[in-house]
């Protein structure tokens, strides 16, 4: 298979979900069973993407297959120069793996939704939206330039909006959709700014070309500071999309959407897009930018974890958990643990999706009951759901034999190494503390939902295991959460093919002066496309050094968390309510999500509304005032004209009439009726005529 054929093949895979979307949308009302077509299309895309991955890894290993075409050529724009917009495909290992992930999870969600959404009035449209989303996400993943990524970025945003607000009859759902989109847009603003700086400097949007330019030393505005700024601005997009602090407020509200949607979009794929973006631009991040990113990531890991401790809605807990895990990934990228970040992205996609779908199964069985305080003892009723849920919970907590253990452990080692190399010990501290919290609240969730006695007897009676179509995805995803798929060694990821062969570390393009010391290469070639080791020897050493302690520490922390959860909820040795009473302010703070929503409401929202009100008043008073004023002027003018017409024009007419009368009166005297008078006149006329014709 040649390169161009591969590119065309990947484009075909890209456009299949779009086809599904269009067909399902158009025929949705007429053909009730059209969702089967959509599901079929997804399955086919999945198979094809699998083949693509296989081909890429075998025939084109270590090669980044890329192809571009010119979309719009503006020619020579004055003051700017020549502008051409190109679109293209970039297929390297990361994008190939990502596309398989996207297609797989999308397909499983499709399958799950067949039963979950049965009976919904807009059933077919739901599947159409899912198809649109898949298309948009796939577009983000295989694109080669930033503008195209931005376009698909926004498309994903639209799909998210449509799906979150799918049950738009509920006000909270439509509000959540709006919130998601608007908050995303704020992040996208920063991303656009970064994009434009890049374009202004390099006249291109393509990743490879930008990287080459930067590697040559051509920095935006010729300063490293501006390169940092650009990096941070582009990262803003990731903040928005991946629900990082401070733009994380939309993700919990997004739980208003159907649970399969939450699974697909807000666990596995869309939120991962932010992380994917940072992965893509990793090569041009300066040390300061990376520090900023790491800080945001740490915060985003810590805050939601604390909130998740006290939440009672099963989906909300999972939502905060998602934010927290994404924070982990961002943190990893910030500290330079690139491969582990990507690894965690993959594993998180699987077990988080499994958790969400499992919760969906529970919600479906309990007839849309989402409060865990009303659940309990479902272990007996829904064994398969329980098993998959438990496996995923173990994965997220970082227990060995799961994939989650490998990736999380890797991240923690990375932070440890970073701390040891740079002295920023806060990051590993936060990382480990959050691991503790994660384990705790996940198992709290498990215990309260599945263990113990049912608290709502009636719903419990009606609950039963979900259908095959819903259970199958759970099983598949749970299966993928085991270590086997990634490495033969349950403890060491580096031994596995996934870590070593499938993901390649990218080349750093930032000038060496801008990087961390440990990131300055020495003696190793760094040509693009090769498995160039990015890090210096110091980093590799540090990593190896901390690996062991990090593993032990993370394991300890995880087990401690699980123990605490069991103590409080299973064995009831510690009373959670009393604990909440004692730490009431903390508890309240956590329960109310750190009052972020209220704060934003009072400041930004109120400010925008105030501005809108002012402008409306201005428009009413000033603009309408001008219009009315002009109308008044016209009226006055017309009045004047009317008076003028009356007095002057009519006056003229009257004058002419009077003149005629006067002259008539004058001439009437000639008509005396007397013949003699006429004779006199005749004589006079004769005299005059004689005078006139005297000469003749």
């Amino acid at each position, binding site marked *: 298979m040649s390169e161009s054929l591969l590119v065309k093949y990947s484009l075909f895979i890209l456009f299949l979900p779009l086809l599904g979307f269009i067909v399902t949308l158009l025929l949705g009302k007429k053909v009730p069973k059209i969702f089967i077509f959509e599901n079929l299309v997804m399955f086919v895309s999945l198979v094809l993407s699998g083949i693509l991955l296989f081909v890429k890894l075998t025939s084109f290993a270590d090669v980044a297959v890329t192809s571009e075409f010119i979309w719009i050529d503006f020619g020579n724009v004055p003051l700017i120069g020549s502008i051409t917009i190109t679109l293209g495909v970039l297929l390297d290992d990361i994008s190939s793996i990502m596309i398989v992930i996207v297609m797989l999870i999308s397909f499983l969600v499709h399958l799950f939704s067949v039963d979950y959404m049965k009976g919904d009035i807009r059933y077919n449209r739901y599947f159409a939206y899912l198809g649109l989303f898949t298309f948009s996400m796939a577009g983000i993943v295989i694109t080669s330039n930033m503008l195209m990524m931005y376009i698909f970025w926004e498309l994903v945003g639209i799909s998210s909006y449509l799906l979150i607000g799918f049950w738009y009859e509920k006000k909270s759902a439509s509000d959540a959709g709006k919130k998601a989109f608007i908050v995303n847009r704020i992040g996208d603003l920063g991303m656009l700014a970064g994009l434009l700086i890049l374009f202004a400097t390099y006249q291109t949007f393509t990743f490879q070309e930008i990287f080459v330019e930067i590697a040559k030393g051509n920095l935006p505005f010729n300063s490293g500071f501006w390169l940092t700024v650009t990096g941070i601005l582009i990262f803003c997009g990731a903040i928005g999309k991946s629900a990082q602090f401070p733009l994380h407020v939309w993700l919990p509200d997004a739980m208003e959407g159907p649970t399969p949607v939450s699974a697909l979009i807000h666990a596995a794929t869309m939120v991962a897009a932010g992380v994917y973006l940072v992965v893509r631009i990793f090569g041009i991040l300066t040390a300061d930018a990376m520090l900023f990113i790491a800080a945001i990531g740490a915060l985003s890991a810590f805050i939601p974890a604390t909130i998740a401790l006290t939440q009672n809605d099963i989906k909300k807990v999972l939502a905060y958990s998602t934010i927290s895990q994404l924070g982990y990934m961002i943190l990893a990228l910030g500290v330079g643990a690139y491969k582990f970040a990507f690894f965690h992205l993959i594993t998180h996609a699987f077990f988080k999706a499994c958790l969400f779908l499992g919760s969906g199964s529970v919600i479906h069985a309990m007839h849309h009951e989402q409060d865990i305080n009303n659940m309990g003892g479902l272990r007996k009723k829904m064994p398969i759901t329980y098993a998959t849920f438990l496996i995923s919970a173990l994965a997220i907590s970082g227990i060995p034999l799961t994939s989650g253990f490998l990736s999380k452990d890797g991240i923690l080692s990375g932070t440890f190494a970073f701390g040891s190399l740079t002295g920023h010990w806060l990051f590993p501290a936060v990382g480990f503390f959050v691991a503790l919290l994660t384990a705790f609240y996940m198992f709290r969730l498990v215990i309260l939902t599945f263990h113990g006695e049912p608290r709502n007897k009636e719903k419990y009676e009606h609950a039963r295991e979900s259908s095959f179509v819903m259970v199958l995805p759970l099983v598949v995803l749970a299966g993928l959460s085991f270590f086997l798929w990634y490495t033969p060694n349950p403890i060491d990821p580096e031994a596995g093919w996934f870590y070593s062969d499938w993901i390649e570390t990218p080349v750093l393009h930032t000038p060496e002066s801008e990087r961390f010391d440990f990131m300055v290469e020495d003696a190793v070639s760094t040509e693009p496309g090769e498995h160039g080791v990015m890090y210096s020897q110091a980093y590799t050493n540090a990593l190896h050094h901390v690996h062991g302690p990090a593993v032990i520490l993370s394991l300890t922390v995880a087990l401690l968390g699980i123990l605490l959860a069991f103590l409080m909820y299973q064995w009831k040795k510690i009373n959670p309510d009393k604990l909440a009473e004692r730490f009431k302010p903390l508890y309240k703070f956590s329960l109310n999500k750190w009052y972020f929503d209220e704060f934003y409401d009072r400041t930004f929202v109120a400010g925008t509304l105030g501005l809108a009100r002012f402008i409306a008043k201005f428009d009413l008073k000033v603009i309408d005032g001008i219009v009315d004023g002009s109308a008044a002027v016209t009226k006055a003018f017309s009045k004047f004209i009317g008076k003028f017409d009356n007095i002057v024009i009519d006056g003229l007419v009257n004058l002419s009439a009077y003149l005629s009368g006067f002259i008539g009166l004058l001439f009437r005297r000639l008509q*005396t*009726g*007397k013949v*003699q008078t006429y*004779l*006199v006149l005749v*004589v006079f006329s004769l005299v005059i005529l004689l005078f006139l014709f005297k000469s003749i």
Partner: protein
Amino acid sequence: MLEISLTHFLVVSSILFCLGIYGVVTRKNAVMVLMGIELILNASNINFIAFARYGNFGLQGQMVALFVIVLAAAEAAIALAIVLNVYKTFVNINVDELDTLRD
């Protein structure tokens, strides 16, 4: 005292003519108007006779004068008949008061 020639007679007749017009125009009484008309006719007669005498027309001028006299007679008769009729209707014959046709 020049030798009497055509001019003299013509002058006389023109003065008489103008006096006749004056009479017609000025007089209120209808009969006075008729007298004016007679003067005019006489003036023209003098003209004819004068030219008959001093011109190359033979006695044609005198013929015409005769005819004019006859016509004047006829006209005077008719005119007076009209005047009498008017008098019977309006009981006065001031021509300036006979203007009912005007209204």
